[in-house]
């Protein structure tokens, strides 16, 4: 039996609903239909009354989640595509994210954002919004890259007493498979050495992890051992694990699918430069998508985001520095 990233997300929600009566799911078409991506398939039947269709009202969906959380519930909000969270942005960053700090009342909501690019999806169904949410205080931002993490981190997201922005990558939904669901998990906020190496630290997260791993594989034939770090969570960001890896390799390349200005790669590079300057044998480097909206045509899309090819080129350049 094998299980996909998407099925892991469904399974995690089923388990959360089963284990905790405070959990409910609210989102457009999540009920009988099972969601645009089928991440809630059959859950409305298995958990009657607890998987609720929402009107096309992202602001009200997220506001409702906060109100329910105040009363002790643990809502999971499915935004149909991450891109549409812009219309619920205010409730996330100003209502949910400030609640605990202002009132001492925790806000345990999970916002599922089907994120990232897939071929042919265009400017409004492809966005990677982790940097926006990570910039605001009061939010936890998860970016699982594996089937196992999709499952265990979603369960943790629901269990955490703070608002969690759960960036699940649509490209991984069907592509990525594992043998079974995990029985144990790393703690939240800990990055993972996805592959050990000694020549260069390649930091990635979400779908880019798999491009990074492919590059590491490829460069073996060139005699290069790349260490790949999977951030798992971009806020909190596990600087220690990254730094320890850079201490071993002396070289840092950080890759992200989001836009180049600011964001995860800037944060990682800035931290390593500020706190681990002496560990570096070469300038820390970053690679992001291009600074335009995400293009529709597959040929443009493939050139817009980093790929194993462009990452490998950047890694080779860095190894020569």
């Amino acid at each position, binding site marked *: 039996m094998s299980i996909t990233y998407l099925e892991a997300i469904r399974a995690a929600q089923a388990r959360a609903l089963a284990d905790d009566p405070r959990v409910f799911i609210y989102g457009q078409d999540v009920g009988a239909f099972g969601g645009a991506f089928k991440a809630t398939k059959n859950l409305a039947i298995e958990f009657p009354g607890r998987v609720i269709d929402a*009107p096309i009202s992202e602001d*009200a969906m997220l506001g409702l989640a906060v109100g329910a959380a*105040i009363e002790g519930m643990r809502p999971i909000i499915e935004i149909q595509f991450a891109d549409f969270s812009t219309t619920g942005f205010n409730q996330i960053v*100003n209502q949910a994210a400030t609640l*605990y700090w202002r009132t001492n009342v925790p806000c345990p909501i999970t916002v599922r954002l089907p994120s990232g690019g897939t071929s042919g999806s265009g400017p409004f169904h492809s966005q990677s919004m982790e940097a926006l949410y990570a910039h605001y205080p009061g939010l936890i931002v998860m970016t699982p890259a594996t089937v196992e993490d999709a499952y265990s981190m979603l369960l943790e997201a629901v269990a955490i007493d703070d608002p969690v922005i759960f960036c699940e990558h649509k490209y991984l939904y069907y592509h990525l498979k594992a043998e079974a669901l995990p029985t144990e998990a790393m703690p939240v906020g800990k990055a993972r050495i996805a592959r050990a190496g000694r020549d260069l630290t390649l930091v990635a997260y979400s779908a880019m992890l798999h491009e990074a791993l492919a590059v590491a594989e490829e460069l073996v034939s060139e005699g290069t051992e790349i260490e790949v770090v999977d951030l798992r969570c971009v806020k909190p960001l596990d600087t220690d694990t990254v730094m320890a890896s850079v201490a071993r390799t002396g070289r840092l390349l950080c890759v992200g699918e989001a836009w180049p200005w600011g964001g995860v790669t800037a944060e990682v590079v800035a931290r390593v430069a500020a706190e681990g300057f002496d560990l570096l044998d070469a300038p820390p480097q970053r690679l992001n998508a291009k600074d335009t909206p995400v293009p529709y045509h597959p040929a443009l899309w493939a050139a817009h985001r980093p790929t194993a090819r462009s990452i490998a080129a950047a890694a080779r350049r860095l190894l020569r520095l």
Partner: protein
Amino acid sequence: MLHTVLNPGAVGEVSSICDAHIKAYRIMLLARVLDDKFASLYRMGKMHGGVFLGRGQEALSASVGLALRKGDIFAPLIRDTAGRLAFGEPVLDAVRTQFGSPLGPMRARDGNVHRGRPKEGLLAMISHLGAMISVVNGALLARRFKGVTGVVGATCIGDGATSTGAFHEAVNQAAVENLPLVLIIANNHYAYSTPNERQFACRSLLDKAVGYGVAGQQVDGTDLSACLGVVGDAVSRARAGRGPQMVVASLLRLCGHGEHDDASYVNSDLRAAPVGRDCLKVAEETLFRQNWANAAAISRWRHDAVQKVEEAVAKVQREPNPDPYKEDWCALASKHLSEGNE
């Protein structure tokens, strides 16, 4: 701690219209005295940030708070000092929040009208207008999940905030879920300086109710008797499971948008019209006319109110400032996940 601020006699179940009026009037008076105190402290330069008052809106606001019970949800807005007091918010909460006392419910982190005790049903507004309505919806849905019935969630909003997308999404949401939401629209004819004509084009804001499929009533917001009746009925209907209720009150803000604003833009015809009446005076006249109170009683109540407010202010003014070194600077409940980044 809520529901204990007023003297026990005034908070007991009201037995008559007379009692209801007196109770409401005393709350209105307390709110007015508190507002006046804040205004005078503001003029003396003793306030951090802005001061936003509910002058002229006390009858409506108090009626909301009084119609609610312990266990209900209330999300007051800018001009709801009276409703807050009626719902049971301690005067101290208001004063401490305005002064930024670390002992207040917002612990100096947030201020003035941005205060509440969410766990006691009193939500703490964020500034973004319209954003609290769906939060009330969520609290009500939670109650439904828990099988709690007979509960109501009330929130107040201005004419200007009806133009926000958040308002629209949330009212529609409440209607779709058939939640016991009571939405009080205080049409004070201005949003900051912007008059109704530049804010909406419907004949009455009440015309919006049918478009959401919710019940709607209008009321003269300067008339306490009318407010107690109409708001009370709306709350009862919601409590009885008859779905969201919208109440549109007509009144005037008898102060600036904030105390920095002289409100010179307010049309003088409006000021002179019945809508410009001071609800506190109107309520007082009713008390006299009905022989429910005499001048001595009123002066005694005012004295009580002044004393309560002065005591609270004096107490808070002696409280320490917040200490940035004692502040934990952590926005997360899960402290171990905080970055502690500076």
